[in-house]
């Protein structure tokens, strides 16, 4: 089983658009960003299996088997 990590903007540099990772039961967003070398303060927005929220809270949420995460650095516009 694997999960899909979608990366955006400069998080893609050296990592690519999508990273597939082996799923281990109970794994959280924190485990994912640790293995990608991304730190929590670098993240502005985070979606885990279609749900968004405050970054710190979302990093503690267990990811579903076959689930996904989308990770964004600070971006804006209008």
């Amino acid at each position, binding site marked *: 089983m694997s999960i899909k990590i979608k990366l955006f903007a*400069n998080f893609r540099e050296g990592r690519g658009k999508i990273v597939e990772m082996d799923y281990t039961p109970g794994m959280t967003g924190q485990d994912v960003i640790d293995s990608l070398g991304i730190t929590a303060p670098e993240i*502005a927005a985070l979606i885990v299996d279609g749900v*968004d*929220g405050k970054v710190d809270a979302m990093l503690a949420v267990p990811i579903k088997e076959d689930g996904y995460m*989308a990770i*964004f650095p*600070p*971006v804006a*516009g*209008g």
Partner: protein
Amino acid sequence: MFGYMGKILRVNLTTNEVTTEDLDFELAKKYIGGRGLGTKLYMDEVDPQVDPFAAENKIVFINGPLSGTATPTGGRYMVVTKSPLTGCIASSNSGGEWGAYLKYAGYDAIIIEGKASLPVYINIDEDKVEILPALDLWGKYTTEASDLLAEKQPGSKVLTIGPAGEKLSQMAAIMNEKDRAAGRSGVGAVMGSKNLKAITVKGNLKPEIANVEGLKAVTKECRAMLKENGVTGGGLPTYGTAVLVNIINEHGVYPTKNFQEGVDPDAEAVSGETMTEKYLIKRNPCHHCPIGCGRWVKSDKSPDGIGGPEYETLWVFAGDLGIDDMEVVIDANYWCNELGLDTISAGATLAAAMELYQRGYITDEMLDDDVILKFGNAESVVHWLKKMGNREGFGDLLARGSYRLADFFGVPEYSMSVKKQDLPAYDPRGIQGMGLQYATSNRGGCHVRGYLISPEILGLPEKLDRFDLSGKEVWAKVFQDLTAVIDSTGLCLFTSFALGAQQYADMLNEVLGTEWTAEDVLLAGERIWNLEKLFNLEAGISPEEDTLPPRLLEEAMPDGPTKGWVHKLDELLPLYYKERGWDEDGIPTEERLEKLGLL
């Protein structure tokens, strides 16, 4: 008088009279400048019931006290008039250089009144102001008209309308430096109605600064804050506003096919990341801007490249039309600039037309043409934009905007607009505060009257639950009031991703010699917001128009991370009116108006 040039230029196109008047410094400080002061000057002279295209209507071009100073992004100007699209107060903002040059020519504002009998343009070179014939420019696209004017008036900055403004499309923009637009609310058509093709401006004057050393220090501090901020020092310079495509889509609030869906599986093709990798030549910053979100991209239109599309433009010509082809969007953006059309409303009108075709209201026979207005049909985009801007055939109906188009077929509910102005690129069913902001915006559907996308999606300055209603009325009011301040200073709204009310107060204080606090400037913002509301009420815009298209209130989002949601405006609106100190019908109370100095 510090900060301001102290002079207003008045040009009467009926009588050919040109006069100057002293700026009332106290009045200027009360309304700051730009959007606030422009609205006050306009309202003091024009009956809100005026027909936007009548000679009695006026149009105000105005910069702000920070325009043309060393402050970051101080090159912007505002166009204030009555909108032919909405019937509301219009204040359309543009970047580039023109706003700063109006100041260098020695003016805080130009008030244009009357109507010329033949096409004219106005040339301003400090004290020399001329009304000159423009018959040779009439009918010309933006680039050609701008190049001709640059030859006639070397060294001047050029502001012009395209054919859409000349032909009174309610979606006509005013273009400056060819690819910068005062885009929204049809302000270009008001110029067209006056037979005014263009305004050229140059000069070498500078405003006096109250505290030069103090301004240097606060400018340095603000520039450092902009540089260190992840958005203004990273995301925007690197990817432009196009960087929003993916994040908005991933949240399931990327309006797709005229807001029928909220996720576009192929959005990556028009993302900021794709643009940067495959199309970007360089950044294209406005005057004194350290952020430089503007893009310069590859195109077959010019070997040197052309101005690139913003996020809203990418969305409207891609997801909203079900197309997702970067080259189609770059082309559509180019043609909107050439024709002088607001990209958001022009694209949204095509989206509404495509839904009307999908539902059988528009038929092949009506189009009288081989190019069918159908979701996914890439070749229809530029084809129909040209007909829209030139008002040819069915394009004449399209030129009136999505509301009037859908209303023509008896189904205005297929126009995704508020107060007849098309909504931008965020579906409010999954961004409850933003929906409240759309519904209450004084210029109709608009994202830059209070950008609640920042806290609800982007996590700036903190992440709010985008579905939760609690406190959203407070956020909406604060964002609306602060935006009114920034729009009045002459600075770019994007500075607010890094700066707060205190920094705007600090910059204004050093320039003007005032001693304002953050609370003082927010109160000025609230004053401006209420002033605009008063105009709309007197113009006959009822609070019942503080609403959203029925689809967004009644049809649950069909899929994606926003699945199942509608917008809960009926719960939020009474809270918002209360927060504003208005009565339950949405009318400002005497008590609040008195507090704001508006009685």
